[in-house]
C-alpha cells in the first residue's frame, strides 16, 4: 500500500494537469503540490508507525510518586544449575494430587553411600529406569527436589499399559476378538486412564494446593524441568528431616471429551507404586 502511495506521489505531474478541468492552472498546481506533500508525509508517518510497532517500546522510567510494585508471590528463588542458570521451580505447594504415598526414608538411599541428595536421586533413577521410566524431569522445590515422570497411560487397576501404548496420549480402543467384545466396544466408550507421578524429596512440610492441575499442565511438567539434578542441590545432605513422597495425578479421558482430573483415585498411592513395580524395587 505504501509503495502504491509512493508511486502515485512521484508520478503526479507538476503542472496541475490533473485538476485542470476543475481549477485554474495556478490553483491546480498548488493543490497538486499540497496533495503530493500530504501523500508523502502520510507515507513517512505510516513507515514510522510501522517501525514503532516492530520495535518494543522502551520501558518508561518509574514514577517516583507511585509506591514500588509488590514482590511477586512465588516460591523462594531457585538454586543455580551447573551452568549457573536458574533451575525451574515446581509449583509449591504442589497442586492437589489424586493419591500420594510416603516412601520410607531408608529405602531411598543404600546404606553404603553417603547421605546426599545426589545419591538419593541416582538410586531413584536406577529404580525408575528398571520399571520403564527412562525420562525424568527435575525441578527445584524448597529444601530438595521434585522429580516428574512422563504422563503414562494405565489400566483401571493402575497397571501400566504395555509399551509402546504406555506413553501414547491417544485413547486406546479395546481389541475386538469375539462377539461379546464387539458389542461392548460398540456400546461403551473407551476410557483413557492417565497418570503423572511426581516424586518429592524435601525437608519441608509438604502440603497440597487445593487447585488441581489440568492434564495439559501436568503434561507440560515433563518438558519444563531439567534432565539431571543440579550439583548444588545434589550436595545437600539427605538429613533425618528429609522425606520422600510421591504425588499421583490421575486423569480420565473419554472420546471427544476433555480430560478430567480425578480428585480422589480409587487406588492408594502405594497401590500405584506397587502396580508399576517401583515399590517392590525400592523395598529391595
Amino acid at each position, binding site marked *: 500500500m505504501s509503495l502504491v502511495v509512493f508511486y502515485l506521489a512521484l508520478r503526479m505531474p507538476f503542472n496541475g494537469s490533473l485538476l485542470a478541468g476543475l481549477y485554474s492552472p495556478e490553483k491546480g498546481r498548488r493543490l497538486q503540490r499540497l496533495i503530493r506533500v500530504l501523500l508523502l508525509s502520510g507515507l513517512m508517518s505510516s513507515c514510522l508507525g510501522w517501525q514503532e510497532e516492530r520495535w518494543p517500546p522502551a520501558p518508561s522510567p518509574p514514577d517516583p510518586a507511585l509506591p514500588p510494585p509488590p514482590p511477586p508471590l512465588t516460591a523462594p528463588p531457585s538454586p543455580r544449575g551447573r551452568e549457573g542458570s536458574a533451575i525451574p521451580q515446581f509449583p509449591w505447594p504442589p497442586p492437589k494430587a489424586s493419591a500420594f504415598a510416603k516412601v520410607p526414608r531408608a529405602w531411598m538411599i543404600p546404606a553404603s553411600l553417603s547421605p546426599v541428595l545426589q545419591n538419593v536421586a541416582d538410586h531413584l533413577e536406577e529404580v525408575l529406569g528398571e520399571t520403564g521410566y527412562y525420562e525424568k524431569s527435575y525441578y527445584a522445590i524448597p529444601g530438595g527436589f521434585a522429580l516428574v515422570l512422563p504422563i503414562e497411560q494405565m489400566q483401571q487397576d493402575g497397571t501400566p499399559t504395555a509399551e509402546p501404548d504406555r506413553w501414547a496420549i491417544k485413547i486406546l*480402543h479395546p481389541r475386538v476378538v469375539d462377539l461379546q467384545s464387539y458389542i461392548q466396544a*460398540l456400546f461403551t*466408550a473407551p476410557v483413557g486412564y492417565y497418570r503423572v507421578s511426581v516424586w518429592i524429596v524435601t525437608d519441608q512440610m509438604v502440603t497440597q494446593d487445593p487447585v488441581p492441575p489440568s492434564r495439559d499442565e501436568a503434561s507440560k511438567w515433563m518438558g519444563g524441568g531439567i534432565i539431571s539434578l543440579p550439583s548444588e542441590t545434589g550436595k545437600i545432605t539427605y538429613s533425618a528431616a528429609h522425606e520422600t513422597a510421591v504425588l499421583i495425578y490421575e486423569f480420565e479421558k*473419554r*472420546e*471427544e*471429551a476433555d480430560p478430567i482430573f480425578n480428585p480422589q483415585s480409587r487406588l492408594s498411592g502405594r497401590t500405584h507404586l506397587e502396580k508399576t513395580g517401583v515399590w517392590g524395587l525400592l523395598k529391595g
Partner: protein
Amino acid sequence: MSGKQAKNVLVIVWFVGSGLLFSVLILQSLFRFSPTEREAVWSLFLPSIVPTLTLIIGVLVTETLGQAQPQAWVMGPIFSLTLFLSALYLVAIGLPIFLSPFSDETPIALLRASQLWMVPLQGLTSAALGAFFVHKPK
C-alpha cells in the same frame, strides 16, 4: 411384481434398515456418547435418513387416504436399481457405525469421513426413490 408389492419391499428395506440404525444410535447415545458427541452424531445421521423416510411415508399416507392410485405395474430394472441403491445407501450409513469398534478413530470422525461418499450416494438414491414412488403411470 405389482407396484404395491414393490413399494412394500422398499418400505420394509428402509424401515428395517433405518430402524436398526436408529436403535444402535439410541443405545450408543445412552451408553457411549458424551452430550457433545450425541449432538454431532445425530446432526449427521438425521439428514441422511429423514428426508427419504418422509417421502416414503408421505406417498403411503396419500395412497391410503385414496388421494393417489397405486401404481399397477413397475418396470423390473427400475425397481431393482432402486432396491440396490437403497440397500447400498443404508449399508453405507451403517458402515461407520458398525465398524467403529475396529477403528482407532472416534465414531464422529468416521461419520464425518463417510459424508464424502454419502452425499453423492444420497443424491442417486433419492432420485431413484423419488422417481419410483412419485411416478404416475400413463
